[in-house]
């Protein structure tokens, strides 16, 4: 058992991602003693090691800079051998091939549903937002009122106005660049200014914006929409901020900003450590919560390991007044469900009568991607990965019938779409046509001819991505796998996931909108339908009485599995993210969102966590 002496702790936080570190910093600054249990490796003194991993990675996926190793001997590392494993997008490949999502030897998540859950995460200092894009949009008022307005799903137990002040504080805390004048659409209002002016638009944005005044997209409930391109608020320095540099347009926000001009939670982790009141135990995985006879959480068991696939070095149990689980909406329910005993037969925070919803209502933003060639150069591969989007389509009466979406304009050419520029380069040099730009018949070029052709094609590439609202379904679940464990012997998360008709209808509307946007711009669309053995795809009726195969990506947004609500009857936490069942337990992060809305979740996560931290400091720990 644990031989270390720790000072009596005010709070133990599981996870050093964005939720955990914002709360740790707030508590630490208020003089509270905090211990963070982080499953992954410790905060390095600089990002050089992660940058070097990225530079040498052959597959520059979001997780490529960060341990644990994705590959072992040219195959995906067997998750059963990894102590603090996590999913990789490389395990979402075609059935029976490299990266088979249903092969437990390749995929960390045990995918049992109709469709694979396509988002991934990190277990490391700073968490998954190490590789977020930086998009910092507020939810709109309607997002909190889906039941009242559209008779769908549920309302949140709070409204936009309850969170407005915290949005402003979150924008200052992480450093968001935007102008209020661009952002007060669809009912959004501001009581504060953004700390930094907006990031300038790219040439791609400007080209897309030119087509907005004449755009019409009929048949999907957006007939009277006045289309426009909006600058995207981003946690990306447009001025020096928090001793961090101004953005230099490295076009690499995902997976890693070489100069930390993009905020990532390691910044707040460092701040938290500097308060002198916060300690982190790294490579320490929380394995079980213990509850006393009064129903309070009395301790958390942890397992400490030596390196990614190495031995266990310590087991222990530690206690504090308050416990905060900040491990993302898959790992947090996993921990809760692993904590089964007499007092908590269904796991912690999950009621005793079998009616609890921990692990249920798993959501993502399924992402529809369309890509095209502009008639004139727009020069992608420049600037931040995204600087603008189209937001006016995020709300309307159509939300009774189909998922809404927001549109993200990409600045990275066809990198996301086809793994360009590598794919087209390989095509043009080796006479292939995997990217679609070297057909009829494929040519093999070199010298000046190669330069000319590549320049012409790459400079005209662009893509748009649609983040579609996913409906909360009790059948989309995180549970514990019965026959798959990680390197510590703990059961891995099992996922049962599907897209409802409501959500698929939203994806289909996205597809229609993408084609309309391209056509209106005079761009040539190159979006490929998915092939039939792509597991992240589904058939959908197309216009001419046929069907088409639509591909979805995960947006990296893991939502809903410990939802907030107005009572213990149908939710896991209250609007302070506090468990109904255990008064000293908080479950924080986008797992508390009862609906997914269309905005990237991180700013809302931050606002909720600052609000929760304030509550804990002023009302719980004083």
């Amino acid at each position, binding site marked *: 058992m644990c031989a270390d002496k720790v000072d009596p702790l005010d709070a133990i936080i599981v996870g050093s991602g964005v939720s955990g570190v914002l709360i740790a910093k707030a508590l630490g600054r208020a003089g509270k003693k905090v211990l963070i249990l982080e499953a992954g490796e410790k905060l390095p003194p600089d990002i050089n090691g992660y940058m070097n991993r990225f530079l040498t990675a052959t597959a520059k996926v979001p997780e490529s800079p960060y341990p644990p190793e994705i590959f072992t001997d040219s195959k995906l590392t067997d998750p059963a051998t990894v102590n603090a494993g996590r999913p990789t997008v490389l395990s979402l490949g075609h059935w029976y091939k490299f990266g088979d999502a249903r092969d437990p030897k390749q995929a960390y998540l045990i995918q049992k549903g109709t469709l694979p859950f396509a988002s991934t995460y990190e277990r490391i200092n700073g968490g998954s937002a190490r590789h977020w894009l930086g998009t910092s949009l507020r939810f709109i008022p309607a997002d909190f009122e889906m039941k009242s307005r559209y008779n769908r799903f549920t309302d949140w137990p709070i409204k936009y106005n309850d969170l407005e002040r915290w949005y402003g504080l979150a924008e200052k805390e992480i450093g968001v660049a935007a102008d209020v004048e661009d952002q007060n659409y669809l009912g959004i209002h501001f009581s504060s200014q953004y700390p930094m002016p907006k990031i300038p638009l790219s040439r791609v944005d400007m080209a897309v914006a030119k087509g907005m005044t004449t755009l019409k997209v009929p048949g999907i409930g957006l007939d009277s929409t006045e289309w426009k391109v909006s600058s995207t608020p981003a946690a990306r320095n447009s001025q020096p901020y928090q001793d961090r540099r*101004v953005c230099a347009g490295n076009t*690499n926000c995902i997976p890693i900003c070489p100069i930390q001009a993009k905020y990532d939670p390691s910044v707040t982790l460092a701040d938290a450590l500097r308060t002198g009141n916060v300690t982190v135990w790294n490579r320490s995985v929380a394995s079980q919560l213990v509850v006393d006879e009064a129903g309070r959480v009395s301790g958390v068991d942890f397992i400490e390991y030596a390196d990614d696939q190495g031995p266990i070095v310590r087991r222990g149990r530690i206690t504090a007044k308050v416990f905060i689980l900040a491990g993302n909406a898959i790992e947090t329910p996993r921990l809760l469900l692993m904590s089964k005993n007499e007092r908590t037969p269904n796991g912690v925070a999950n009621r005793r009568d079998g009616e609890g919803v921990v692990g249920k209502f798993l959501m993502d933003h399924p992402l529809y991607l369309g890509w095209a060639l502009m008639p004139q150069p727009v020069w992608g591969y420049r600037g931040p990965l995204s600087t603008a989007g189209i937001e006016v389509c995020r709300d309307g009466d159509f939300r009774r019938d189909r998922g809404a979406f927001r549109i993200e304009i990409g600045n990275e050419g066809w990198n996301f779409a086809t793994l360009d520029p590598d794919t087209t*380069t390989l095509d043009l040099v080796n006479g292939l046509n995997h990217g679609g730009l070297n057909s009829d018949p494929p040519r093999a070029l070199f010298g000046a001819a190669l330069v000319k052709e590549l320049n012409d094609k790459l400079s005209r590439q662009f893509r748009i991505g649609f983040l579609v609202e996913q409906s909360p379904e009790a059948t989309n679940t995180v549970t514990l796998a019965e026959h798959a464990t990680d390197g510590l012997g703990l059961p891995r998360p099992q996922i049962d996931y599907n897209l409802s008709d409501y959500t698929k209808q939203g994806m289909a509307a996205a597809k229609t909108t993408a084609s309309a946007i391209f056509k209106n711009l005079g761009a040539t669309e190159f979006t490929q339908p998915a092939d039939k053995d792509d597991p992240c795809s589904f058939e959908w009726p197309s216009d001419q009485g046929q069907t088409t195969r639509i591909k979805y990506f995960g947006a990296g947004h893991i939502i809903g599995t410990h939802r907030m609500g107005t009572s213990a009857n149908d939710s896991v936490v209250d609007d302070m993210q506090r468990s109904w069942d255990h008064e000293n337990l908080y479950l924080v992060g986008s797992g508390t969102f009862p609906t997914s809305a269309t905005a990237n979740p991180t700013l809302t996560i931050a606002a909720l966590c600052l609000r929760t931290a304030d509550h804990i400091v002023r009302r719980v720990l004083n």
Partner: protein
Amino acid sequence: MIDFTRRKVLGVAGGTVVGEVSPTGTIERAAADDASDLNLFVKISAALTGIGEKRLAPDVDPIQVKHDYFNQAKSDPGFEPLMQIARAAPDANSAAEKIMNNADPQIKFLGRSIILAWYLGVWYEPTVLAQVPAPFPVNPMKVVSPVAYTQGWVWRVAQAHPMGYSEQRFGYWSDEPLSLDDFIKNPVKP
């Protein structure tokens, strides 16, 4: 995966065999052949890639990625036949024509590997490129070195920069880039 040290990242001895640092600190040249072969390799690479020779291997070159590609290519069986064509040809462009249209696949596909190395910083084995149908994605392949990625020419042909390696200032993306010639043609000395 390549194991590398901070020394290599700083551009010193990035897999090169051309020179070794002696205890006194002077660089000893390997066989003179190697040095002239390296120069010829760069000339041919310029013709193969369409990128100016002084861009591939500038006079002031702290990075010296040419060594990485030269050594990689040198280890291939098609290298000597390819270099013979290069030595015999009247100029680099006609050498490139003969290499890229060669009946011998060892030579032709090595030419393609060399182009891809300069463009992408990644080595695609000629034998893999030669497969019919050519596999996609190509596996295994390797990033030649961390600096090779940052020196990839495809990004400059796109009038951009390698993702993760901008050498520009805030806001540049609102302006048009410099012309393609500015990126790839030999710089004009004043």
